[in-house]
């Protein structure tokens, strides 16, 4: 950092990515997508506008949940699935803190599903980054709640027979007010999503497609390999048409509530026919249409912000209510505590 941090008077502290790295050796497997996520978080952190000491990283259990140890901020490595609950407590206890959650598809959507949906429902101002590698890595290769139907893994030698979660639908459906997706191999894009989440006041969810080179290598290869990714990924940008393909010659058109892929090169359609992405759309219908692309054959996978809107956060409401009741009843004292209701004197 450029300024002397020991002087707390300094209002503007200019950090660099390095300031956010702890002194611990990073111990993920070589080639793990987590390295990229860590790097993008550290590169984005100076842009959060928060002092280092006011940032808290909370996690659950899993490879992704080692994340807090590698950050130089305050960190809490919790127990399996409970990161959102722990983080909620941190945020409520001290709303001035910026609270982040690092989690995985198993940690957040399986054992932690309940805490996840309720944090979204309450719109707690937490920033949740879910590393989705579609596999259990730390326990060495069992299928996860985001593994695709038929996935062969150590616990599904004949293929899974259960349907996966669609994380975006779940987050949006539960009430998260910032819902986004990115990919470990898209560093710039990922940084943008992280920075935007940091500025959002409310429950923010970023699903990051992350490669597990050991137990699910290439799970997202169609989204990351140069020769194919342009046909398989569509970048959502607010106010811009949903175009994809190497030459941006394909687009998404909405036929009523049915999305269809149109070819802009054959003269039948023009860019004016393409669905224009609106993050701020009040109506969540289109978010679900976009989220559904990953379930549909042949559709590109959207990355970017699906939706962002503002509504009162749970933590703000808690503070507001306390303020209001204090104004109404006056600050609590021991006297007030005991001498309400029926009391009597023995003399």
């Amino acid at each position, binding site marked *: 950092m450029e300024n002397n*941090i*020991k002087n*707390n008077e300094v209002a503007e502290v200019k950090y660099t990515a390095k300031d956010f790295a*702890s002194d*611990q050796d990073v111990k993920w497997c070589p080639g793990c997508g987590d390295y990229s996520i860590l790097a993008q978080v550290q590169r984005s952190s100076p842009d959060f506008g928060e*002092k*280092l*000491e*006011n940032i*808290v990283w*909370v*996690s659950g*259990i899993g490879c992704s949940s080692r994340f*807090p*140890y590698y*950050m*130089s*901020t*305050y*960190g*809490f*490595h*919790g*127990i399996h699935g*409970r990161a959102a*609950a*722990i*983080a*909620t*407590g*941190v*945020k*409520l*206890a*001290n709303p*001035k*803190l910026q609270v982040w959650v690092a989690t995985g598809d198993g940690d957040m959507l399986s054992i932690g599903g*309940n*805490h996840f949906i*309720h944090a979204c429902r309450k719109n707690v101002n937490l920033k949740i980054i879910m590393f989705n590698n579609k596999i259990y890595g730390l326990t060495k290769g069992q299928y996860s709640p985001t593994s695709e139907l038929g996935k062969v893994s150590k616990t599904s030698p004949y293929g899974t027979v259960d349907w996966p979660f669609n994380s975006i639908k779940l987050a949006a459906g539960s009430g998260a007010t910032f819902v986004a997706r990115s990919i470990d191999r898209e560093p710039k894009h990922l940084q943008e999503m992280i920075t935007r989440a940091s500025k959002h006041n409310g429950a923010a969810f970023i699903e990051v497609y992350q490669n597990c080179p050991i137990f699910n290598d290439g799970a997202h290869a169609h989204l990351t390999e140069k020769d194919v990714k342009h046909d398989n990924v569509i970048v959502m940008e607010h106010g811009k048409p949903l175009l994809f393909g190497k030459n941006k010659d394909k687009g998404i058109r909405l036929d009523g509530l049915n999305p269809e892929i149109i070819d802009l090169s054959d003269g039948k359609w023009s860019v004016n026919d393409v669905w224009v992405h609106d993050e701020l759309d009040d109506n969540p219908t289109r978010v679900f249409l976009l989220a559904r692309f990953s379930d549909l054959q042949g559709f590109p996978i959207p990355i970017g912000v699906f939706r962002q809107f503002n509504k009162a956060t749970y933590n703000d409401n*808690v503070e507001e*209510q*306390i303020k209001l*009741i*204090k104004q*109404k009843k*006056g*600050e*609590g*004292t*021991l006297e007030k*505590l*005991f*001498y309400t209701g*029926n*009391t*009597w*004197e*023995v*003399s």
Partner: protein
Amino acid sequence: MSKEKEVVVLDEVTVRFAGDSGDGMQLTGSQFTDTTAAVGNDLSTLPDFPAEIRAPAGSLSGVSGFQLHFSSSDIQTPGDSPDVLVAMNPAALKVNLKDMKSNGTILVNSSAFDTKNLKLAKYDSNPLEDGSLQGYQLISVPITQLTMGALEGLDISLKEKERCKNFFALGLMYWLYNRPIEGSSKWIETKFAKKPLIVEANKKALKAGYYYGEHTELFTTRYDVHKAKLPKGHYRNVSGNEAVALGFVSASLRSGLPLFLGSYPITPASEILQELSKYKNFGVKTFQAEDEIAGICSAIGASFAGNLAITTTSGPGLSLKTEAMGLAVITELPLVIVNVQRGGPSTGLPTKTEQSDLLMALYGRHGEAPLPVLAASSPADCFWMSLEAARIAIKYMTPVILLTNGYIALGSEPLRIPSIDDLPEIPVNFRKDPEGFQPYMRDENLARPWAIPGTPGLEHRIGGLEKKHIYGNISYEPENHALMTKIRDEKIKNVQKDIPLLEVEGEKTGDLLVLSWGSTYGPVKEAMRRLKKKGYKLSLAHLKYLNPFPANTADVLKSFKRILVPELNLGQLARVIRSEFLIDVIQYNKVQGQPIKTSEVEGKILELLGGENGK
């Protein structure tokens, strides 16, 4: 003109109000309690209600009861057997009759003894007429009918009129026990302020009941229980659950830390969450979590961030919280887990009492995960033990389990209102200085520093993985794990230096020591008093600290030939005493979902002493 009625002075009375769970018996009971407290009696109460909110009206399973013991001297329990039963219908009579003292008084609402209700209560014949209540003082009053009569002409529905009958019964009981009706009148005015007709109806019913006592020939005597000689001061009546709430708000005021409660509603602990949610002007944050696990985990997060954090639950919830308790143990964060014990296992007896979570509190976590365990002995003691739990948690940077149970959580007694100086000091020293800071360095008590997020220069990471001694980084070194395990154990053992010695009431050495813990204190103490009056030499030691035990526990136990341990389980403290001290004890166990009765303890002690010859 009615005759002047005789007033008989009694030392103590136990009254039970019983009726349909929709009859408002809890309300009637608590009104009688408030008035009784205001006239200066010592008292103790116990509600007894079914787990079903509204079981079919008139059925045996729908009976709800409220028992009150009041006295002109210091008392410890809600009383074993009622002297007086107020039964609002046949089912209430049937369910409660077995508990009555012989020759006790039974006041029944005879209006409710119709064919339908008798059938619902599974009576073959009307007990008011078939002579089966011989041996009791039966007072048969058509309460419903008289209430309807008193409210004639009032512009409310018949159903609303009928619902005023509990106030008629209350008024009659006020007359019978010579208590003023003004307090309840005022209460009615406030409670139904928005419904003037309902105020009028209930007040009329209350008065009608009172004057009915005065004018009817049914009663020749009324009773009085004089003021008790309690220590000087201001008092308020508290249930154990209310007292827990007051205790933690007081701990918050005393420590200067904001109070955070993460909790999920569960019987019979929900009232703590309900109470604390009222105290927003004290800065109390209550987080009604999505489940029990989120309750404790949010509290752990809040503790990490520097709040006085607690979570409240009952048996099944404690099971769900166990993994997170281990997290609080290894992260060494202050946290209080209040467990209001109920009958188990599984859903068990949600509204009934038991002391069967002791072993779970002591040992129910994976790994070596020691933590202090305290137990409150009475409703008012819940206040003091909550403060004590908070003090220990903060001083030693550890989770603490506070055990209460349904009996004292829902039961009530007067609490002498403390002044700020009566409260224990709860100093908080957040680490501020980055110089030389390490997250797992330790003070003289082996507590690690509480360094909260937001403090510049103290950024650190903690979590559930084993920590390197002093430095707090992840460590898988065998010697380090052994060291940390021992330090965590020693830290909790250190608490022993900081808690009061085990007191012996009565003879300091001798033949028989009664060793009680938690909520059995009341009945045991009362039994001892009765036996002392009869000339027996006896000793009582009561444990409020179950881990660690007071430092002199072994000495006390060794000073007696025999030790009797009464508890509401199959011998959990007995097992711990045997294994910790290699001293055998005599067990007295009860697992009926009901508190131990004074007479039961008395009987057991007499049996051990060889009956009347043991003086």
